[in-house]
């Protein structure tokens, strides 16, 4: 069977010594973690390895010997190294030797209790220890459900190096009986800024937790739960967004350490997302308040509302005449048209009543944009909803009228054919009607049928307007969702430190020489950007269409009121 030796590239220039690492017998591979140099006392080495094993739960042992001779092969050294094999008994005992500056090393194994005496092939795989230690292997998405750690050979290797972190803490400047060479043996790296931030983060987290508990206590107080207010809060999207962000802040400021990689990435993603959101919000705010743009905006708001109302009045006048050449029922037309016109007149009066206060309200509301760009977008969506409230009312009136008409028509059509709807059995049954019942029923049916085009036209026009507003609001919410759920920290990590997010490995065949073992270089294959977004997406209260196209069309045809967006977590009605 082929023997695979995973050798860290940082130990290529180490002095002679013995190799320590983990032997994975199921895969017949040896993962070498460090080189212990002479002089050493074997008992102390065994003691040290026992301690490391206890702390890291990785079965580290002495695997073989490493000889790096600058001049020609020294015979005595090679015999000495073979004798070491008897002290640290390990099956098989791996001997790697490098001569001078040659790239091609010779590798051999000593098997004392082997069944087959034939030479087994050896593959030497170089790996970058620091990158493999820091990297996180992502299994393919469909097999994420099964997930034993040694389901994949590679995850065993990555896991071994990652969990042996404590082995890499000693460097060559430490005073101790054991001298190791590994990727950090030239000195442990640390960054002052990172250490300072770690120290400062604890009190900051505690302060944030305290403030958040205050805020959430206020939010949950009974005062805000009375009926009109609670109804209002549920309709405004800004409250949902603020609640969502509050939840995020609670996740970040909790003082429980992240258990695993996923939680750590989620915390980091939320933190970066909040930071960017607030930065963009402050940018927007500074742009709005410079040159008094808020004042200009407030000044144009009333004329825009007036303009919309005028357009609606023109539309109603058109409907009251002969729209698109269709002939309407004059009386019903006039009634409906005048009703809606009066409604618009009322609405305009209310808007004009509010007009002196608009600028001040807008100025203070605009200040809340500093809480984030998403908050500003939600405010925009809510302002649009409030300004087009009359369109919503018209839609409801038109839909109710149309719905009533359709139900009446269907029931009278059944009467016309001599059938009846059986409520008990939930089906259509035949029924014998009296003559006067039939007469009145047919009359009413005819009236409703001939009034149908007028009602249908009003319903159609207002439904289209309502759908337009709904689409605009939906687009804004989609943008807010995007900003909320994009994992920016993961994307930045993939861009700058792509070895941290690994989809797998790739092997490169290095120069070969006959008679020497096969040399391969193992590099980390980073995750693709699409997979990064899919794995690390932040969950949001995303709104998505409640109905399929077919059921939406059916509801529109029957005149039922449509609420096209459904929020996750909302109860189905």
């Amino acid at each position: 069977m082929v023997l695979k030796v995973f050798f860290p590239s940082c130990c290529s220039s180490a002095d002679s010594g013995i190799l320590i690492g983990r032997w994975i017998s199921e895969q017949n591979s040896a993962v070498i973690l460090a080189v212990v140099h002479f002089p050493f006392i074997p008992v102390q080495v065994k003691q040290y390895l026992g301690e490391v094993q206890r702390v890291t739960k990785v079965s580290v042992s002495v695997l073989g010997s490493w000889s790096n001779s600058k001049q020609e092969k020294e015979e005595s050294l090679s015999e000495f190294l073979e004798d070491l094999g008897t002290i640290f008994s390990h099956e098989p005992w791996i001997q790697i030797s490098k001569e001078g500056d040659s790239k091609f090393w010779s590798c051999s194994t000593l098997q004392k209790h082997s069944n087959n005496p034939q030479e087994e092939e050896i593959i030497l795989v170089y790996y970058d220890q620091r990158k493999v230690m820091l990297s996180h292997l992502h299994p393919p998405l469909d097999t994420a459900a099964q997930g034993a750690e040694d389901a994949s050979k590679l995850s065993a290797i990555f896991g071994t190096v990652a969990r042996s972190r404590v082995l890499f803490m000693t460097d060559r400047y430490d005073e101790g009986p054991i001298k190791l060479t590994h990727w950090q043996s030239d000195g442990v790296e640390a960054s002052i800024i990172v250490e300072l931030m770690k120290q400062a983060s604890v009190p900051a987290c505690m302060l944030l937790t305290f403030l958040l508990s205050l805020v959430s206590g206020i939010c949950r107080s009974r005062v805000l739960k009375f009926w009109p207010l609670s109804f209002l809060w549920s309709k405004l999207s800004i409250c949902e967004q603020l609640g969502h962000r509050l939840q995020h802040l609670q996740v970040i400021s909790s003082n429980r350490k992240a258990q695993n990689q996923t939680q750590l990435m989620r915390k980091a993603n939320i933190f970066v997302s909040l930071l960017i959101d607030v930065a963009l919000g402050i940018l927007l705010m500074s742009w709005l308040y410079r040159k008094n743009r808020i004042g200009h905006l407030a000044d144009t708001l009333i004329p825009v509302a007036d303009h919309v109302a005028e357009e609606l009045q023109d539309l109603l006048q058109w409907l009251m005449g002969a729209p698109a050449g269709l002939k309407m029922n004059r009386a019903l037309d006039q009634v409906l048209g005048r009703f809606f016109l009066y409604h618009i007149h009322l609405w305009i009066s209310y808007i004009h009543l509010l007009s002196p206060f608009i600028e001040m309200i807008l100025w203070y509301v605009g200040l809340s944009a500093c809480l984030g760009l998403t908050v500003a977008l939600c405010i925009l969506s809510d302002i649009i909803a409030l300004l087009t409230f009359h369109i919503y009312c018209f839609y409801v009136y038109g839909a109710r009228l149309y719905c009533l008409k359709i139900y009446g028509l269907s029931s009278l059509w059944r009467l016309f054919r001599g059938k009846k709807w059986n409520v008990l059995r939930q089906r259509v049954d035949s029924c014998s009607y009296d003559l006067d019942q039939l007469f009145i029923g047919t009359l009413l049916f005819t009236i409703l049928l001939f009034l149908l085009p007028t009602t249908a036209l009003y319903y159609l026009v207002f439904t289209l307007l309502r759908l337009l507003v709904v689409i605009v609001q939906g687009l804004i919410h989609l943008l807010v969702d995007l900003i909320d759920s994009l994992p920016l920290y993961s994307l930045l990590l993939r861009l700058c430190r792509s070895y941290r997010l690994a989809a797998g490995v790739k092997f490169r065949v290095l120069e070969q020489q006959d008679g020497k073992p096969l040399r391969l270089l193992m590099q980390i294959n980073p995750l693709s950007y699409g997979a990064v977004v899919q794995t690390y997406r932040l969950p949001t209260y995303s709104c998505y269409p409640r109905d399929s196209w077919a059921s939406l069309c059916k509801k529109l045809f029957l005149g039922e009121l449509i609420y096209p967006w459904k929020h996750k977590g909302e109860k189905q009605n």
Partner: protein
Amino acid sequence: MAEERRFRSACGAPIALRRRQHSASCRELAVRGPRLQLRSLSAATSAVWLAAYGLFALSENSMVLSAAIFITLIGLIIYLHFVKIDQESLLVIGSLGIQVTSSYASGKESTTFIEMGQVKDVVINEAIHMQKVIYYLCILLQDPEDPQGVSEVVPLFQSSKPRLDCLIEVYKSCQEILEQRKTAPQSS
């Protein structure tokens, strides 16, 4: 040692198969497709620019010319980096796994490594595409629950589409290495 042979792809374009044996259990098989020709590139560029110049003559708007240059550059970069595959190679390392690499014309390489424990077999399959029957080489992946089942089929050489004679060569080389794992003592 390396050897190179010429074959034809399913559409008739000339391709070259290069085999290298690195060691007794490691083989690399690379299929190289035709390179980007200078004359097709110049033809495409001239066509776009002639059309842009014609539009400019009609509309007297110089934005058309800048837009044409922009579009040509962006289109060329996208084509070289995402579409044109120069070489597809298969690296079979017995007892480690199979690595599939595609190299694009811009130098980008996209690699996938499949561990040997997941590989059930390497086979040649037939597919009916429009009016043709084409053969393709694919790797069958083992289903972890069902030892007889196949969880996924990974097709190889999709861009160069070699014909059956080339595929048989690749198949034979792969099978020689895959057989070694059956003769060796089984590992879990």
